[in-house]
């Protein structure tokens, strides 16, 4: 456990000091850390899912607090929690099946009924609350379910599955599911790139913004399939990562044009489609992307150009944005915009009244509302923004959406 604690602290400090950049790297590191936490944590014979959930949640809280703007951390924590719950439920279902196989008298029949109902109830607590789930589940179904699990263990004598074997099995299943998750994070851009040929056609002009590995793979995959098209890359001030993307695309043989962000509105009428990568996708279908993206989205809407967002599912966040321009934004150093040497006289605090007249604001992110997005291409297919809530319901449990507040109370 000491080893794990060290790993946790290391990642926390990395996140706090913003040493880790990019949602994919963050997501992978978080998932790997949680995998270590799961494999190292001591599990009691009973109530395994609950213990694991507590352990993961404790670590997750620290990670989220270290960098609240990096939504991928929270996403992965919630995904892992959902995996644990799911494995726990399927385990219980197997247990109930096994129980039913063993011969029982009247007593067992009643207990079995309860188990069945409780597992059904608990399963519906797994999905987000819906109208019918509201009526089926009881508030303490989770705890009663887990105690039923323990009853299961103590009561059975003639069961085929050994409880110890089942507990090892459970951990192994969870870890293998987390491995799948890590694999998905690493290869999502390849899966998305396979869909490229359906969306990009001959003699098209694509506009993209900044640098996104997913977009790069997407465009290159279409190029592989012998589509000929041109790409406009908006440079994405103040980091100018668009320059990097343009170089990479040109190296792969694509015809690339670099434009400034301010030229987007002027050039958009010559473009057929806008394809961008983003930082995070919110539950209402809105996206958090690099600063300047909102402008591109507006330009696209004005000229009725499809605004397509390519994203891996690890960027899907179950939270709804309230005041995202402020609460989900980060102000970066002004030195990226203005160099200190030239402007030191304006920014000097010692002149005159002591307050500088020149302020530099350098937000890192932009919020694009869902009305401006035409399509999301994810590694599970293409969806419209109003469908995002379904994907979220598939990947996250409603109980996990609020991670911090429960512990604060």
């Amino acid at each position, binding site marked *: 456990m000491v080893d794990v604690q060290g790993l946790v602290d290391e990642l926390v400090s990395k996140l706090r000091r913003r040493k880790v950049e990019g949602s994919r790297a963050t997501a992978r590191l978080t998932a790997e850390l949680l995998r270590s936490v799961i494999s190292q944590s001591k599990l009691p014979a009973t109530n395994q899912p609950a213990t694991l959930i507590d352990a993961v949640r404790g670590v997750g809280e620290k990670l989220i607090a270290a960098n609240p703007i990096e939504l991928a951390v929270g996403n992965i924590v919630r995904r892992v929690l959902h995996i644990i719950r799911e494995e726990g439920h399927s385990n219980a279902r197997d247990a109930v099946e096994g129980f039913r196989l063993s011969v029982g008298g009247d007593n067992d029949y009643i207990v079995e009924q309860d188990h069945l109902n409780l597992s059904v109830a608990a399963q519906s607590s797994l999905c987000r609350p819906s109208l019918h789930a509201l009526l089926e589940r009881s508030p303490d179904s989770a705890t009663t379910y887990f105690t039923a699990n323990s009853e299961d263990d103590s009561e059975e004598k003639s069961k085929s599955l050994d409880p110890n074997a089942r507990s090892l099995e459970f951990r192994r299943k969870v870890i293998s599911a987390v491995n799948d998750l890590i694999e998905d994070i690493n290869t999502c851009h390849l899966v998305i790139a396979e869909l490229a040929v359906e969306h990009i056609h001959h003699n098209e002009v694509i506009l993209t913004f900044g640098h996104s590995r997913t977009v790069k793979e997407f465009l290159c995959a279409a190029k592989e399939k012998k589509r000929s098209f041109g790409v406009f890359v908006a440079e994405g001030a103040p980091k100018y990562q668009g320059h990097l993307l343009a170089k990479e695309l040109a190296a792969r043989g694509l015809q690339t044009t670099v434009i400034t962000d301010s030229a987007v509105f002027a050039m958009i009428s010559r473009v057929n489609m806008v394809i961008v990568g983003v930082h995070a996708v919110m539950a209402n279908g809105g996206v958090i992307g690099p600063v300047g993206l909102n402008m591109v989205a507006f330009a696209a809407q004005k000229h009725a150009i499809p605004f397509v967002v390519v994203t891996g599912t690890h960027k899907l966040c179950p939270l709804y944005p*309230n005041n995202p321009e402020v609460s989900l934004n980060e102000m970066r150093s002004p030195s990226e915009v203005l160099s200190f040497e030239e402007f030191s006289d304006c920014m000097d605090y010692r002149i005159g009244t002591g307050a500088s007249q020149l302020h530099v604001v350098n937000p890192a992110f932009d919020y694009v509302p869902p009305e401006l997005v035409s399509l999301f291409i994810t590694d599970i297919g293409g969806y419209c923004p109003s469908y995002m809530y379904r994907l979220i319901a598939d990947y996250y449990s409603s109980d996990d959406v609020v991670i911090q507040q429960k512990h604060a109370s």
Partner: protein
Amino acid sequence: MWWRSASFILDQRHVEDPPNDVASSSKEPDTLSTLSPPQTYSSFMAAADPFNPIPNPKISAYYQTRAAHTAVVTSDWLAQAQAAVGHHPDDSQAPQTQLLASPSASGKSFCVINEFNNWRKQPDLAEAVAAIRALAAVIRASEATTMMELEIELKKASDSLKSWDTTSISLTAGCDLFMRYVTRTSALEYEDFNSARSRLIERAEKFGEISCKARRIIAMLSQDFIFDGCTILVHGFSRVVLEVLKTAAQNKKLFRVFCTEGRPDRTGLRLSNELAKLDVPVKLLIDSAVAYTMDEVDMVFVGADGVVESGGIINMMGTYQIALVAHSMNKPVYVAAESYKFARLYPLDQKDMAPALRPIDFGVPIPSKVEVERSARDYTPPQYLTLLFTDLGVLTPSVVSDELIQLYL
């Protein structure tokens, strides 16, 4: 519109003037009141169909037939079942006063309305919740020995509750939800009727509890969206919205509220009184001043009488107007509605609902030639709403139909 067709002229010959609608019945195609056409159809239908146990002139015939065709327990089926079982003598659509006055009415319906009134006396309880609790009491008090009998009793009780106020959508929706739950519950798999019944009672009680707590859940969910220094525009007196604002005030958030006057009910005055007690800065506006002040407003908060399948809402007259203005000025419109208000309605335009008329007092006598638009509520389409806060969570309007499908199919 079908009321301009020739068949309308033919139908007009069958029109009997309803006692409360003298002014509009004389005018024909110009009239906007839809009271007469549905009445002709339903009285037509009622005359033609002696087995219709619910001849309700106020519910639009479209929805009556729709309910009959899509409900699990249809009225025809019910009539046949009743004929088979030996029905109780209280099928008639007696108005509430008559029902209470006549002791010869069947004990069960009498009980229901009484029980309903008892619950309704609590000032904070919504009508639909009172209805749900009353229906739960019906199950408890019922002497049925089979599931079918119980269903029949519940259906009758539910119908008499609905007839108490035919224009209230939340009441109808609440009853329908409850009925739907009863007829579809997996408790029916129990072999023993008594245990099934006790399970039903337990769940019905829980439903009642959840509906009571719904307001608090909604208040908690919406806290994130109210930030310090914001201006909220509120329309109509909704206890849910009041709860939201109360909780925000208790959490020491700094915000101010613009209240529309809400003629002719003057709900705005009531709301401003309540808010003044909470020390929240309130400003009263006349209904026409909404567009004038909309640029100072940060968000619009309304309640709902009902949430329809498309994700739109039915609320006090004026809500649609405010939503249109807010949408054109890019202000978010948030709706706070409990989940039992989700109704199986799909209005295609403003007139496509059961009319709810109310008398308007202009303060001066109006010549009888002048018509008055007396409808009490309007329909706001989903594209003008940003988010719905319900006890199921924060939802976008597109999620509503999903929820309803899951429950009703």
